[in-house]
C-alpha cells in the first residue's frame, strides 16, 4: 500500500490539454474519488497513474518512488475497467490467475490465492465458467478479483459501476466501499461522473472540470462548502440555484437585488457589486401565504419524486427549483419562498469563486 502524489501533472493530446497542472495527494489507504463530467480529464489522470498514458509534464509518485519512467507492467497498480476487460478466452479461474502467472508465482500458490480471493468475493462456484456465461455483476466481481489477487499497492477503478443496472449498482457501491476501505484499507482511486457514487463512497472527492482541479475535500466539504459555482452545481441534485445580481447595503441591512426580486442577506455578508447568489433547492423556506422577507413566485410545474417534490419557478429568463413541503399541492399556482440564511452562498460575479457561505 502506498500514497500517490501528483505534482504539476499535465497531459496534452496534440493541441488539447486533457489535464492541466494537477496537484493532488492521495493518502495511504484513502478512498479518493475523481469526479467530473465526461472529458474533464479524470480518466486520463487515472490512466497516467496506471502508466497507460505518459504525462507531458510533472511527476507522479507512488510510495517513495517517481513512476513516470516505470512501465505499467512493473508499477503494481491494478485497474478495473468500465467494460471489465475480462479475457474472454479464459475461464474465471484463468482470468484471476493471469496476473500471478505473469509474475511467475508458483502454481500451488496461484491456486491457493485464486481460491482465497474467489471465496472472499463470493464467486468460488463460478471458477470454471467463461466470462460470457456470467451476469454483469458477476463479471464485475471477477474483474475485482483479478485486480485484488496480486495485492496491488494502488487500486484504480474507472467508472466500474456504470455498466450495471440501478439495483445492482446501489448494492455494489456499498460492497466496494466496504471491501476496499474497511476490509482491505487499500489506497483506491475511483473515477466516476456520478455524484451519488462519489458522495457515498469517497473519503475525499477531487472535482475536476476541463482538465483543472476544482476542489478537493470530504463529501461534506464538497457539498456544504463548494469552492466555486461549478462544484456547487455539479454536486447535489437538483443542482444549486444560481442567481446573478447586486449586493446592496443600507442602514436596514444587506440585500440582494436580482432584478426580479430583492432578498435579505445575512448581516455578516461582506461583498459588494456584482455577485452570484447560490442556494440549494432543499435549503429554502416555503409558505402559501405572503410573509415578511418572502418572495412571491409562480409555480410553472411540479416534479414529484416520491417523498420529495420540487417546484419550478420562473422569473422571465431566470428559472429556479425549490423543494416543496408535502402540504403544497400542484393546484396552488402561487407560493412564497426564501433561501435559508444559514445555507446561502455568495460567489464572486466574475471569478465565480465562493466569497461567502
Amino acid at each position, binding site marked *: 500500500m502506498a500514497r500517490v502524489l501528483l505534482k504539476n501533472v499535465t497531459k496534452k493530446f496534440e493541441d488539447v490539454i486533457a489535464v492541466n497542472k494537477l496537484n493532488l495527494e492521495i493518502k495511504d489507504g484513502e478512498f479518493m474519488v475523481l469526479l467530473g463530467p465526461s472529458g474533464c480529464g479524470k480518466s486520463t489522470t487515472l490512466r497516467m497513474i*496506471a502508466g*497507460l498514458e505518459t504525462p507531458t509534464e510533472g511527476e507522479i509518485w507512488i510510495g517513495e518512488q517517481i513512476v513516470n519512467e516505470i512501465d505499467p*507492467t512493473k508499477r503494481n497498480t491494478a*485497474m478495473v*475497467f468500465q467494460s471489465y*476487460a475480462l479475457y474472454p*478466452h479464459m475461464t474465471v479461474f484463468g482470468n484471476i490467475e493471469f496476473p500471478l502467472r505473469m509474475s511467475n508465482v508458483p502454481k500451488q500458490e496461484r491456486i491457493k490465492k485464486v481460491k482465497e480471493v474467489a471465496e472472499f468475493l463470493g464467486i468460488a462456484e463460478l471458477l470454471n465458467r467463461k466470462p460470457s456465461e456470467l451476469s454483469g455483476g458477476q463479471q464485475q466481481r471477477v474483474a475485482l478479483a483479478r485486480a485484488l489477487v496480486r495485492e496491488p499497492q494502488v487500486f484504480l477503478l474507472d467508472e466500474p459501476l456504470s455498466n450495471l443496472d440501478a439495483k445492482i449498482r446501489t448494492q455494489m457501491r456499498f460492497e466496494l466501499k466496504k471491501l476496499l476501505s474497511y476490509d482491505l484499507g487499500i489506497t483506491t482511486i475511483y473515477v466516476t461522473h456520478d455524484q451519488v457514487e462519489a458522495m457515498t463512497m469517497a473519503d475525499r472527492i477531487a472535482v475536476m472540470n476541463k482538465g483543472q482541479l476544482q476542489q478537493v475535500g470530504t463529501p461534506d466539504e464538497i457539498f456544504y462548502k463548494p469552492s466555486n459555482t461549478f462544484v456547487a452545481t455539479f454536486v447535489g441534485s437538483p443542482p444549486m440555484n444560481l442567481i446573478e445580481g447586486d449586493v446592496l447595503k443600507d442602514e436596514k441591512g444587506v440585500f440582494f437585488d436580482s432584478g426580479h426580486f430583492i432578498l435579505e442577506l445575512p448581516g455578516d455578508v461582506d461583498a459588494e457589486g456584482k455577485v452570484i447568489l447560490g442556494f440549494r433547492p432543499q435549503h429554502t423556506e416555503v409558505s402559501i401565504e405572503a410573509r415578511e422577507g418572502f418572495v412571491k413566485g409562480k409555480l410553472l410545474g411540479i416534479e414529484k419524486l416520491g417523498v420529495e417534490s420540487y417546484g419550478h419557478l420562473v422569473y422571465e429568463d431566470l428559472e429556479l427549483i425549490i423543494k416543496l413541503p408535502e402540504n403544497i399541492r400542484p393546484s396552488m399556482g402561487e407560493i412564497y419562498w426564501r433561501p435559508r440564511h444559514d445555507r446561502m452562498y455568495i460567489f464572486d460575479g466574475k471569478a465565480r469563486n465562493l466569497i461567502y457561505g
Partner: protein
Amino acid sequence: MTPKEKERLIKRIWIVITYVVLIGFALVYLMPFIRSLVASFMTWAQASQYPPKWIPSPFTLENYEKLFRLELFPKWVRNTALYSGIIVAGNILFSSMAGYAFARLRFPGRDVIFSALLSLLMIPMFVTLVPNYIIIYKLGLIDNILGLSLLGLVNVSSIFLMRQYFMSLSNEIFEAARLDGCGPIKSFFYIALPLAKPALGAVAVYQFLGSWNAFIGPLIFLRTPEHFTLPVGLSFAFQRAMWTEYTPIIAGSLVASAPTILLFLILNKYLIRGIVITGGKG
C-alpha cells in the same frame, strides 16, 4: 385483399424471385463442375463431341484407372500437401505477428510501412516472377518445394486480414493485460493469438485453397516430375506433343479438389467470417 395480405404476398414474390436468381447463378457456377464430373466417366472420344453429351456411354472408369496407374501420383499428392502445409503454417505465424504489430504496437513509420505493404497488392505476380526466380535460383532452391514455399510464406492479404481483426479487439483487454504484467510479446501469445482463432482459421483456409490449387508458381519453380505438385503433375502426365488427353486430367482434378471441397464443407463458416472481418471494420 387486406393491405397486410398484400404486403405478405409481395414479400413472398420477392423471395421467389431472389431464389430463382440465386439458383440460376448457382447453376451457372456449378455447370463446369457437373460437366467435369460427368466427363470424368466418359471416353475422350465421347467427351470431345459437339453438341456435348451429358450421359456417359459407355460408362468408364478408365480415366481414374489411368490416374492411379501413374507412379508419381502419390508423390505429387504428398508434395502438394507439404507445400500447402508450409504455406499455411508460415502465413499463420508471420501474418499474425505482422498484423499484431501493425494493429497494436506503436513504432515510427508504422502507417507508412503498412500502406507500402498494401500497395503491393496492386502489383501482378508476373511482374515479380523473374526477380523471384533469380533470387530462388541464386539460393540454389530451384526445383525444390522449400524454395517454392519461401515465396508464399507470408502474404499481404493475410497480414491485412489479421491486422483488421486485431484492431477490432477491445483496447481495454490489452490494457488490462499490460497492467497484469504482460509486455507486448506476452500479450501477443497469451491474449491476441488465442482470441484470433476465427481470423487464423480464415487465413488458413484461404491459404490452403490457394496453395493446393497453385499452378503457375510450381510450374515455373519446379523442374523434375518427382518434385511436381498435383496440378502441374497432372497436366504434365497427360499432355502429349500434339494434343492433350483431357479426361484423365479432369478425373485427376476432381480427385485433387476433393480435400478442398471437404475443407470448405467443414470450415465454410470461417471463410465467410474471413470475408466479414476484412470487409467490416476499416
